[in-house]
């Protein structure tokens, strides 16, 4: 039985979702703990999220 490629892409997107969710959640925690560092945390969060997002798009375009 052959598993279609789109299933793999779906799995990757689940992983990307968990990853970005964790980044967002951790950033929320960090901001709550240190509201004065909001700008720095936000920047780091966006960069990390953007990098993970790239993997998701790579998976989608590989299909």
């Amino acid at each position: 039985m052959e598993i279609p490629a789109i299933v793999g892409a779906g799995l990757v997107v689940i992983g990307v979702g968990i990853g970005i969710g964790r980044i967002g959640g951790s950033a929320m925690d960090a901001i709550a703990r240190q509201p004065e560092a909001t700008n720095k945390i936000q920047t780091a969060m966006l960069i990390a999220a953007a990098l993970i997002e790239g993997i998701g798009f790579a998976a989608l375009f590989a299909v």
Partner: protein
Amino acid sequence: MQFTRALFFLAVLVLIQPVLLTASGHSEHASDSTEFTQVANQEPAQEGMSMKQEIKAHIQHHLQDGHDFHLYTDTETNTHVGFPLLVILLDDGIQVFSSSRFHHGESVAESNGNFYALHHGKVYKTDAAGTFEMHDGHVHNEKPLDFSITKNVFSIMAFALILILLFTGAARSYKKSLVPSGSARFLEPLIIFVRDEIAIPNIGEKHYKRFMSYLLTVFFFIWLVNLFGLTPLGINVTNSISVTFALAVMTFVITQFSGKKEYWKHIFWMPGVPVPMKILLAPIELLGVFIKPFALLIRLYANITAGHIVLMSLIGLMFIFHSWIGSTLSFGLSVFISFIELLVAALQAYIFTMLTALYFGSAVAEHEDH
């Protein structure tokens, strides 16, 4: 100086695009395969399509670059609203003619004894009847080198003009007084944002000034283009992978050329790492040099394309549901997504500029402590 640099970047962007568009598929005549012919003036029958297929075709057409600036088609009277653009082909010398000769892909254009026809938005060389040699669903006609002013190229030129007018206006207002007036009132906080939040933290106080012109150009160009992509004009410049490719290539080239000794040392012979690891890590680091701009181009392209597909699909759902509850829901959802897309338009410009600044920062970084 800054002005000429901005001009240079936009000129490169415009020039590189058609080359990339044609580089993707240059196929020859296939003689030994089964051939059948298709006449160019046979448009896919509009009446035979279901609503779903029609929406799908519409979305696909929207995502494509075109040879004329097409705003909309009235299917009842079959009239196209828009204006033709210039077609420039490098084939037996230079062929220049208006895209109105294609009649929106419905007829064959003749130029100096050569015949050209459109198939899925691409120009192919045909005979006088507009015959396509099809096999495996692909056209195997000869493809001339296409330097046309397509919809995207035209939009890029228009945006370049808008940006130049806005920014020269802003620059002029500072000569009169330091209190900003006119467009500078709106642009000053944004320029300061790019400088204080993007350039200085990532590149550093010492070197950031050299890169400001490029960062500002990229930021405002991507932002403006993304915003106009959300208007009903149907412009989708960053939907085209060749545009984002050109942007990423410029980031790549500037990063490599401003790379100092430390930058190359950290790629090929990183300090503080045992020698076997250095040998192992060097190819990975070298690969990373190319992956970074690649991720940059895919991110921008994919985000904007995905946004447009989602938005257009939701609008299409309104016509598929055809009931007051389903259509209302999808209308509300599409309004919501439109606002998200407004955010994404700015966010992608920010992220592209931010990562570009990060790469520049790594290229010019000076490490004193090891």
